[in-house]
């Protein structure tokens, strides 16, 4: 079972937050306590920052499906194709706060909603969500409809509905039910109207003045509840969390901590960490069938293998960070993983006897760490060959948060000529990139890093040679030299940007926007917390959700800010 260890964590957190600090009245901005949560001081709660601007955040397709399952039932089949998610600066979680709904997208949402409503209110499944019976099954019953709409609507909108919102749907249920001569059919249309409402499709993050300091804006408690549950569960708040939020008992230190721990402790937390890493590592491309390999070159790259590869890396991450609470930097050096027989054949290791099982790569073998997995090697390669440039770009941008500038204007590629097959390895071919000044600047950042992985072909299978020439995978990552991919993984583990980058990525995934200047100090603080904990994932999440950046905002995002 992958869940965080509960008892010790509550105790640890509570002691950190309640020891040695005056209660609310005694805290002021000057001593670094934020909101109405008591704190030890800056080293615990973090600097008194102001979070960035908030905006509507459209549910990703995974969140859409998961939310439907949590509210209306696991058995409901949800259309996998709604509006595609948009990746912005590397994360779907950030793109979600910029997208809207296009005409064809809305058409798909409406069709999906109709199908969902029909299933949810079918005679087999309706019992789970409908606790009243209509006075007549062939007409309207406003009382029962009202009860259903208010209850389910609260879970779908993630807050209690207003009277108008309920009344409108009750009217739909009544008129449709009468027209169709079927109470439940009428209710289906009311449910559909909830499912296509912007209040469901978008997470609305509302802000209010902080009662402790009117000059600051904080997220309302239901907005915090929503942020918390989509971060940790990748799904909608459950009743208990909503109750806490709407009773005004979420934003207190103890309650927020307790809820955070409860969520982390739940089996549903695995979905949350998987969603984050899937987003960061662009695993959605595998789900969407976009990681394709030439069947004649790489017949081993079946759909099964692609799915297994993704699953291998996610299981490795969950096992490392959650089950065993290990140092996250060692994700790039660990030899522990999980395999299936089909993965075994690509890794050329014996692995029989059924499906998933733990496996440790050989100590003297070429593989260690996530970057040696089939998943990442395949994603960062072309259909027919490996790509040192793509792999280097991935390490720089995704793992180290270093920006690679765009290619220069009017770049002239005519200088990069393949001299009739004399250049046999990728290192030789890419050498051309770095001999030209216009290209070298950026390619020097990317190619050498990617060349460390040339022993892994376009699907991550090992090769010692390319075109008869022994592969040279040596290089240097910002001063730390390595001989091969294993050494590269170690250099990555030791890189000073690794911690800050994962912190930055988790933070912007959690709040849905890129950090603004007022949040930079907070990122430093969070990274310090991460480091102090020995790079434990749980500590980072907890520090994040209890921090000002998560709980406050500068305001609603304005159009000019968005254009930057």
């Amino acid at each position, binding site marked *: 079972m992958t869940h965080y260890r509960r008892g010790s964590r509550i105790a640890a957190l509570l002691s950190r937050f309640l020891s040695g600090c005056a209660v609310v009245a005694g805290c002021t901005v000057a001593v670094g306590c934020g909101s109405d949560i008591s704190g030890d001081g800056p080293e615990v709660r973090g600097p008194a920052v102001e979070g960035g601007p908030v905006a509507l955040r459209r549910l990703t397709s995974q969140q859409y499906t998961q939310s439907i399952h949590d509210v209306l039932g696991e058995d409901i089949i949800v259309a996998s194709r709604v509006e595609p998610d948009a990746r912005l600066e590397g994360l779907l979680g950030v793109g979600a706060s910029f997208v*809207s709904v*296009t005409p064809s997208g*809305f*058409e798909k949402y409406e069709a999906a909603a109709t199908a969902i409503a029909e299933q949810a209110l079918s005679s087999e499944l309706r019992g789970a969500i409908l606790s009243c019976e209509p006075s007549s099954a062939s007409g309207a019953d406003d009382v029962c409809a009202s009860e259903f709409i208010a209850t389910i609507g609260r879970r779908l909108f993630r807050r209690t509905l207003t009277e108008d919102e309920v009344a409108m749907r009750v009217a739909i249920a009544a008129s449709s039910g009468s027209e169709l001569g079927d109470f439940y059919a009428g209710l289906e249309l009311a449910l559909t109207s909830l499912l296509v409402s*912007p209040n469901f499709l978008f997470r609305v993050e509302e802000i209010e003045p902080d009662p402790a300091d009117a000059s600051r804006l904080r997220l309302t408690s239901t907005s915090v509840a929503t942020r918390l549950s989509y971060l940790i569960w990748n799904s909608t708040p459950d009743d208990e969390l909503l109750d806490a939020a709407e009773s005004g008992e979420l934003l207190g230190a103890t309650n927020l901590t307790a809820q955070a721990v409860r969520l982390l402790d739940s089996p549903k937390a695995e979905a949350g960490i998987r969603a984050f890493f899937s987003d960061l590592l662009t695993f959605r491309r595998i789900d969407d069938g976009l990681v394709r390999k*030439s069947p004649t070159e790489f017949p081993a790259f079946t759909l099964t293998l692609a799915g297994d590869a993704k699953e291998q890396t996610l299981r490795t991450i969950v096992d490392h960070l959650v089950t065993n609470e290990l140092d996250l930097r060692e994700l790039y050096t660990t030899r522990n993983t999980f395999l299936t027989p089909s993965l075994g054949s690509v890794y050329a290791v014996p692995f029989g006897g059924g499906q998933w099982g733990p496996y440790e790569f050989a100590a003297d073998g070429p593989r260690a760490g996530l970057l040696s997995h089939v998943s990442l090697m395949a994603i960062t390669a072309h259909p027919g060959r490996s790509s040192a440039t793509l792999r280097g770009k991935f390490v720089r941008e995704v793992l180290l948060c270093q920006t690679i500038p765009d290619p220069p204007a009017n770049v002239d*590629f005519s200088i990069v000529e393949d001299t009739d097959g004399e250049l046999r390895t990728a290192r030789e071919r890419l050498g051309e990139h770095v001999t030209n000044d216009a290209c070298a600047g950026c390619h020097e950042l990317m190619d050498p890093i990617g060349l460390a992985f040339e022993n892994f072909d376009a699907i991550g299978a090992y090769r010692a040679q390319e075109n008869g020439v022994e592969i040279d995978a040596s290089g240097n990552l910002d001063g730390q030299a390595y001989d091969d991919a294993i050494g590269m993984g170690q250099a990555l583990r030791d890189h000073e940007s690794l911690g800050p980058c994962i912190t930055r990525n988790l933070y912007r995934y959690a709040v849905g926007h890129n950090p603004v200047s007022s949040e930079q100090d907070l990122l430093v603080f969070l990274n310090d917390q991460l480091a102090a904990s020995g790079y434990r994932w749980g500590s980072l999440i907890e520090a994040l959700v209890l921090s000002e950046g998560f709980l406050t905002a500068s305001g609603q995002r304005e159009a000019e800010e968005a254009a930057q």
Partner: protein
Amino acid sequence: MKKRISRRTVLRGAVAGGAVGMGLPLLDCFLNENGTALAQGGGPIPVRFGTWFWGCGMNPARWAPPTEGLGYELSEELQSLDRPLESGGKIRDHVSVFSGFDVKLDGNPNYPHGSGPASNLTGLFAPADGVFAAPSIDVLIAREIGGFTRFRSLQLSATGDRNQTYSRESESIRNASEISPMEVYARIFGPDFADPTAGPFMPNPRWTLRKSVLSAVKDDRDKLMSRVGTHDKQRLDQYFTSVRQLEQMLDVLLSGPPDLPSCRRADDPGPDILEGEVFQNDVDSVNQRHGALADLLTFALACDQTRVFNMMFSWGISGLYVPGSNTTHHQLTHDESIDTELGYQPQATQFVMVSMSAWADFVEKLASIPEGDGTMLDNCLVFANSDLSYAKPHDVRGLPMMIAGSAGGRITPGIHVKGNTDPCTRVGLTVQQAMGLPIDAWGVNSLRTSLPVSEILV
């Protein structure tokens, strides 16, 4: 030109989105300048606009026709247009070619594969890689003529990637592509399709009920507007437009099947892919999907399900490959050396020929549907374009463009026009004018023009 009021006129309401369900006098706003906005009730056949995109351009010296004007001489890379048509003549008679029209940069960055489409389709400079500064030309046209049909527009891609689309509502809002013939069939010709050959039309009561659902969410959206910032207001405006589009779709459905003789339900293309396969980008698979999507499109157009479409054959960063090869079209345009005897890159050029052949296939399909006195192609304006001219150095000068069809008689087909470094926006301006948009000038700075390509305008 006046039209008699049809039942559909009563139910559909005005372009601006009001007065549904009331009988309205036939206002000019129902018709565009050429009086062809209404297709039903025995009126003229609608004019359709579409784009057809292929990636990684061509070899300028081998693509641009050697002669100008009507009856231009076909170049080596346009030989596919020499195909005879069943309806008479050849494809080239219906295709105009535009060479030497440049994408101007004015010192702005040339984002590889990004600046070309951004400027050619919006008239503005790309603000960032992959970003458009304004809605794309198909959206501008769809906003004019899209409200009369069940679907405002259709985006189709043979590349197997939904995110590959150049249709933009705004900077960050793309209209995703349909990639699956099976799904396209279900979407257009599924249970809601009104088949004119299927006997008397019975409106489905659910359509009206679905509209009632939509008024509730419009209300939700109005209430949200007051609680969000200006950025979100724009996004909620887009949401509202999309809800309205669905309402209009339901209105169109309620008004019954189109009265077009060439309309019938398309054939079910069957399941797309065998189990365990993905949408591969080898030339054969792409051609097969392109053909299937194009077939469905012609049926959709014949039944007036939409009047605006975008068909993508290959993406700017073209992933086309030949089975057994370990490299792709795009990769080759950069890596392959120029053959000193031939004077071009032989493998990369193979894909130019593949693309031009697919273009000919597409035009041929439109020409195979009889409509009025001629064919559907006569009532179309298909704007073919690419992201670059010569791909190796990401050249955006002389962007290759073609127009197929006669737009219902508004343009003269079969002419080669040389741009002589004029901005590419001249063609986009011409296209918009031909489709009836009230526009005199388009684009900014060096991309700005008020001079359409009059050689092709009737």
